[in-house]
């Protein structure tokens, strides 16, 4: 079975979300920081009049979080009726992957990362790590 994934990069890594889970991809929007927010919440953005929470998964990938005003592209997903925005470096192409190429995340990855990425698709010469949308926006 083939599934379509929207791909994006974060800190050099290639990640993907199932097309059906993604509402849209966007360029940078200014973020309003939320004091006292759980780690991973990068602020609130005004998405055409809707207030959407921006999530920075970097700390969970073991990378330093984005600075408050650092520009970033966004992948907007809808989870449990709420729109959430994942901060990514760059949005790439839509790839059709084959379930046969799927492998669960290797145990060498940290628990955080393994929870975040359900597994990896072996593409030609590189790996596409598939995000679990629920975990990703759960901050």
């Amino acid at each position, binding site marked *: 079975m083939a599934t379509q994934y929207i791909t994006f990069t974060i800190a050099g890594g290639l990640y993907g979300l199932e097309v059906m889970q993604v509402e849209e991809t966007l360029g940078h929007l200014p973020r309003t920081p939320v004091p*006292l927010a*759980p780690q991973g919440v990068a602020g*609130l953005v*005004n998405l055409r*009049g809707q*207030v959407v*929470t921006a999530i920075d998964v970097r700390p969970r990938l073991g990378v330093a979080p984005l600075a408050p005003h650092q520009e970033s592209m966004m992948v907007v997903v809808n989870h449990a009726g709420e729109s*959430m925005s994942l901060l990514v470096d760059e949005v790439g192409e839509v790839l059709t992957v084959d379930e046969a190429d799927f492998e669960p995340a290797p145990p060498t990855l940290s628990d955080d990362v393994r929870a975040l990425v359900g597994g990896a698709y072996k593409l030609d010469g590189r790996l596409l790590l598939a995000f679990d949308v629920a975990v990703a*926006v759960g901050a």
Partner: protein
Amino acid sequence: MDGVDEIIREFLIESNENLDQLDSDLIALESEPGSRELLGSIFRTIHTVKGTSGFLSLDNLERVAHVGENLLVELRDGKRQMDPATTDVLLLMVDTIRALLGQIDETGEEQGVDISSTVAALQSVLDNEPLVQGSDGSSPTTPLTPSTEHEPLGSGHAEVIPEQDAAGQPISESGACAEESQSGIVVRENLATPATAAARAEGPSTSAHRHSSDTSIRVDVSLLDELMRQVGELVLVRNQIAQLAGFESGDLLRSSQRLSLIASELQDGVMKTRMQPIEQLWSKMPRVVRDLSATCGREVRLEMLGGDTELDRSLLEAVKDPLTHLIRNAVDHGIEAPDDRLRAGKTSAGLLRLSAYHAGGQVVVEVSDDGIGLDPVKIAAKSIERGLKTREQLATMTDTEIQSLVFLAGFSTASTVSNISGRGVGMDVVRSNIEEIGGTVEVDSRSGQGTTWRLRIPLTLAIMPALTVTSGHEIYAIPQVNLLELVAIDSSRTDDSIELIGGREVYRLRGSLLPLVRLADVLGTESHVGDTVVIAVLQTENQRFGLIVDKVLNNEEIVVKPLSTILKGIGIFAGATLMGDGQVALILDAPTLARRELSADSMEALAAKRVEAPEDTTSSAEFLVVGVGAHQRRRIAIPLSAVTRLEHIQLARIEMVGGREVVQYRGDVVPVQRLGRILGADSVESVTEKPTVVFTRGDRSVAMIVDEILEILDDRGAIRSDVTDSGLLGSIVLNGEVTELLDTVYALELVDPLYFSSHDPDAELSSFDNALMAGI
């Protein structure tokens, strides 16, 4: 298939709406028997249900409606008078129809609802109850509609027409006609209009209150929400264009102003589409009151005023349960039994009045009864029994305050638990529900004379007036509901006007002490205070406090946007909103702020505790942990015993005396030093105010500026290391983090060489001097 589903859905929505109307019509009919307008309306509703269900092959529904219709025909045609039994059976019919509709809505089938008993009940009324007999002209038991001039039936003046004439009335009458044909005749009043389904489109004379259906259409709420969102977007674009046009003149500017006007009007218009009259809610209440008064053995007269008062539909939903609860409570506990009322010199029927009106940008909904009222003595006794208040507390309270105790959790005045109310789920739930939507509830009662519950509800959930302020770089909105006043103090005078009591900052506001909370401290952000310090005086249900903010921006109507689930847990934000330039701003939740900051002892309170309970020198020592350094934040531990006070200091207030930095502090000139400089760390310079640790020994003080106050920890089980540097005694692992231990003596002597050689050190301080020397 979709087409049919759509029709059924429409039918369900419309029927449910009509049934609500039916409930109140039927009950109104009891007090106004023979009102043809009401009868006509009821008949048409059932007739429509019957007709449509026949068309949609909903057989059970059709059967119920059919028998009901037969009964209604007799009523309408004056062959039968309304009496409680008839009302009961008709209400039963409405319930059955509602159950059937519910079943259809859920499963698409009408199976599973028992209709036989309802049909039987209706039929038995039809069969057995004495009809007005045509032959019994001498003693008509039931007078007919008083508004018409006709004489009693059977006297020969009633117009008897053959059933074929009825067939002249619009289609789908066949069922009714067939039934009527059993009796052979259709009796029609002289002036009666042909009250059929056709009358819906026809009659000013018959259906004044159905008129809205001619001029209104049904719209899906999600469509309205979407429209609302798009209007929001339009407003933002308008703002951008207005900014662009600001530098131009001529056509663009004019067009932009026009766009601005139209967008505002459009926004208003869309907002209005969400407003609905409170009538919608009230139409259900006559039924509730009727059923309940029957169960409780009360006689209740229900009055409703101001039903056309409009509310946002989401608020209407939210008010429904609290309002129903108040009404139930009024019937069950407020209004006395008829005998008791007569004994008290009242009419046997109690009056329950619902009223709604606009006042001060809010909708006020009142539920008042002329019942027994709230007895302050009983309430006081109950609150002592429940341990909610002490006798001493009650002694100082007014009757009104005591009556308000019913809003406390766990309070219920009913001495017996009934199945209506008094299960402990009471007024506290009403209050929390109303507060959730930004409203308030109060009670006004006179023992023996009645009670009025007053709900104040914002006009709309979506928009509220708010004050926008800044703290640090960000904008925050404070709902006006909580705002009492603003106090501005010149920054240079803050030390005089803001005092410390028990380590807490307070301000003397017209003689009374106002506890202060610094917004930046709560949020853990930097603050940028200008020339004036602004205190927003906030009032929550039982607390008044001052919130210190950096700057006040504006009074604005803000549109409230919900926060995502992961942010709701923070608590102190009630939502978010968009500013004119599209920036997101957080809305502060004053009640949560008050609960959190005024009860949970803050940093200062911890420091104050030290004064009350001098250090315990046995095994562990407490450390104040501060952060120093802009880029690499270093954790520095200072023995808490040496610290006198924590302050925030305006960097602009630092003066130079003889090459040393000093600051005027409480009438003294106090040497000041940045801890970071002593330790060779850089420090955050972008701020105008910084946390400062003040050390006092005897009459000498030293102020040490740090970048952040982190926490107070004790060193029980801490791992120490001698890895050291100038100004440090080593390091210590506190709470899992490496923390550098400040050489307090070295640091203090560096700032004030005479600090430890003060001639008259307080005796009590000597012990901690020793402790400091020993490095604790």
